[in-house]
């Protein structure tokens, strides 16, 4: 597995180069648009994989997931890691995407007491964190209760 939406807090610098910038840049397709991979055998993966976990075939083709799914399980955080303090309390969830893979993500636009297993959710692109007042703003997927089209 490579990628995902987790934001580590190690603002790694090697030789004066901020590795966070390049790492976040490499992940932009999966974070902004939920781009994973699909194997010839039909297995779909998120985050994207180089080798199919089912048939061990390579290569994998990129596929954009629809972004709709169902809450499988969840937990609410009241003590946040560095960089996430402004969001507490917030809920992270395991989400069964309609196309197959299960992913972990933060929920948004929903109060913790209103989250339930089986709740239908959709992907939105939001701020994941800010690297301080002068650093990068990291955007990526979160999930919220589905918003309908009509009043």
């Amino acid at each position, binding site marked *: 597995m490579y990628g995902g939406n987790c934001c580590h807090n190690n603002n790694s610098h090697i030789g004066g180069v901020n590795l966070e910038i390049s790492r976040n840049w490499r992940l932009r397709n999966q974070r902004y648009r939920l781009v994973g991979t699909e194997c010839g055998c039909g297995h779909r993966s998120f985050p994207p994989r180089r080798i199919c976990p089912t048939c061990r075939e390579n290569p994998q083709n990129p596929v954009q997931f629809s972004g709709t799914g169902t809450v499988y399980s969840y937990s609410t955080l009241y003590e946040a890691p560095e960089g996430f303090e402004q969001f507490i309390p917030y809920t992270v969830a395991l989400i069964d995407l309609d196309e197959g893979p299960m992913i972990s993500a933060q929920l948004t636009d929903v109060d913790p007491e209103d989250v339930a297993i089986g709740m239908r959710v959709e992907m939105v*692109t939001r701020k994941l964190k800010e690297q301080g007042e002068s650093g990068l703003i990291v*955007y990526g997927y979160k999930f919220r209760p589905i918003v309908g089209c009509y*009043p």
Partner: protein
Amino acid sequence: MLTEIVLGDDMKPNQHTGIVGYGVYIPRYRISGCEIARVWGQDAGSVPVQEKSVPGPDEDAITIGIEAAQNALKRAQVPPEKIAAVWAGSESKPYAVKPSSSIIAEAIGATPHVEAADWEFACKAGTEAMQACFALVGSGMGLYALALGIDTAQGRPADPLEYTAAAGGAAFLIGKGEESLAVLEASHSYASDTPDFFRRESNRYPVHGSRFTGEPAYFHHVVQAASELMEDIGRTPEDYQYVVFHQPNTKFPLTAAKILKFPPEKVKPGLIAPYIGNTYSGCSVLGLAATLDIASPGDRILCVSYGSGAGSDAFSFIVTDLIEERRMRAPHVSVYIERRKAVDYAVYLKYTKALVMR
């Protein structure tokens, strides 16, 4: 082959263009005018809007733009790689140097063969981008161009602007006339150096000229742009089923309508400031979207923006048969207005990053 070029005061591309798709986004949170008045000991009976939208802690002009753009593409059903330009108008860019438009373009899948740029003209940055999109598509340089008006508006605490400065935005995919749900009949832009509202580099909040923002600024530019457009193309208020004005509060657009002799019922479908406040660059374009949500084929809509500094863009649109099917493909403005959670002043401060965390 180019059609006949007609040169006049009105601005009209020499190929038919229009709105192929539109989409909006309004954050979920609201703070009431009464709650703000309570904190500052003001009269709750004279607040300029009932409540205003508040961005959530993970929202900014870019995230607002991404969802609005995605909704515009849902309505248009145009492959994002066919978009020639993504032009984002805002006065609350998350980065001082780094385009919002390239992040939005990346998120909707329009990169890399796309022109991306940010536009600024206070509250009319969104319609300024629309004007450029009409010109780009009308000239044949691109098949489609996306214009956005997006903001998380700033207002100094205890200032009258704090009651209205809100968050939201709209995106309009501009394309050829025959593919459009609303065809551009003509437009007219009007600008002058009128310093009614401004924000200097590195300052967090804007400065405004209080009553000066009314007569020589808002009303002069809005009325001039609207009346000169109608005169240019031989239209009168009776020809329009709807009119949309920039809405910094509830009173200004209704007064502008009265000056131009439009009855209030033609303004009210697009008058959303009482419920979500003034979304700055998103303001008039959200009103236009709310009007498209209920308009019928054949209806004519006049939309007039206003940006401090100062200027107005006026557009005359004719709604086509394509509106009926396309407006059902993405959330209506009223869906986002009704999706609301009231917050108190303390939570409002937390969400707008007014609290120092370290």
